[in-house]
């Protein structure tokens, strides 16, 4: 679990502990790709996950330093909240997270279909080809 490095103030604590979990998880997956260099790590984050993208990016460099992910880029794809509206019988997208009412009919709903995600979607890796390894 992440601790705040000296000088990193508490507003970033949440994001730092999240990106540290990402680094840990991706590092485990890299065991299957011993010759890989990570170029990019892509996340899917719901609007209700209450993380700040700028802070995630800021913390990424700190968390990745000294790991196989050092120098990689973090890409965060934000997902809006989608709720199911029973009267409309439809999944509807919300503009923000200030009201959980159907934008079409105004009915409140807690049947959320998207918006709480905090997922590692994929990574982009560069691998040295078999040939270049033989030459080396």
């Amino acid at each position, binding site marked *: *679990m*992440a*601790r*705040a490095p000296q000088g990193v103030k*508490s507003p970033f*604590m*949440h994001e730092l*502990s*999240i990106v540290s*979990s*990402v680094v840990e*998880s*991706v590092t485990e*997956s890299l065991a299957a*790709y011993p010759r890989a260099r990570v*170029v990019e790590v892509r*996340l899917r984050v719901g609007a*209700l*996950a*209450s993380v700040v993208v700028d802070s995630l990016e800021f913390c990424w460099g700190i968390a990745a330093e000294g790991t196989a992910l050092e120098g990689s880029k973090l890409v965060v794809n934000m997902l809006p909240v989608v709720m199911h509206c029973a009267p409309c019988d439809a999944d509807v997208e919300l503009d923000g*997270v*200030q*009201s*959980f*009412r159907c934008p079409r009919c105004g009915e*409140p*709903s*807690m049947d959320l279909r998207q918006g*709480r995600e*905090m*997922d*590692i*979607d*994929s*990574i*982009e*890796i*560069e*691998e*040295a*080809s078999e040939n*270049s390894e033989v030459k080396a």
Partner: protein
Amino acid sequence: MTTRIVELRRGILKKNDELAALLRQRYAAGGVLVLNLVSSPGTGKTAFLERTLRDLKAGGARVAALVGDLETDNDARRLAASGAPVRQINTHGICHLDADMIDRHLTGWDGVELGDLDYLFIENVGNLVCPSSYDLGEAIRVALLSVTEGEDKPLKYPTLFNSADAAVITKMDIAEPCGFDRELALKNINEIRPGIRIFETSAKTGAGMDEWLAYLAEQQAARERS
């Protein structure tokens, strides 16, 4: 060099979520209703919990509490005055409790077995942001808000209020001098979490505690039936 995309598609907090699922099974096997109390620092979680532990014990219920703070065991000592077993978790800088911390503090807790409890309360670190992401395996997440904090707190921290199962308004005894707009607070909570049960309480006067205790008993009975 070849470049390729590797799909991982997994939760960032997968480890926490898996451990929380195991904790949930342990709580269920022990027949204990577990509640996770979350609020800002200074809302009065500890005073509310002190009163809850005391009142539940007086009614014959078997209760215990885990309490999270960055530092000090002040809250554990306060809560222990109720006579309930209480254990302090110091996170040393971490802004929330996670499932691993709960797991480690449930092990080797002298004299406390989950099977001997009716209710286990977890008082989270005072913080309205981070605790909302970490499942502790609880049956009920309680978001607390005091009358001194401003009625728009649920709108400012929607993630927490939206993920809560019950909301508790504390310090109702000083609502009037604080100019607390009750209707507005209830409306805002409902806007973020439609239909949520809301309790208006005062740990000092005991107002609202009967309704809260009745809710706890209902939830424990519902757990037994499930």
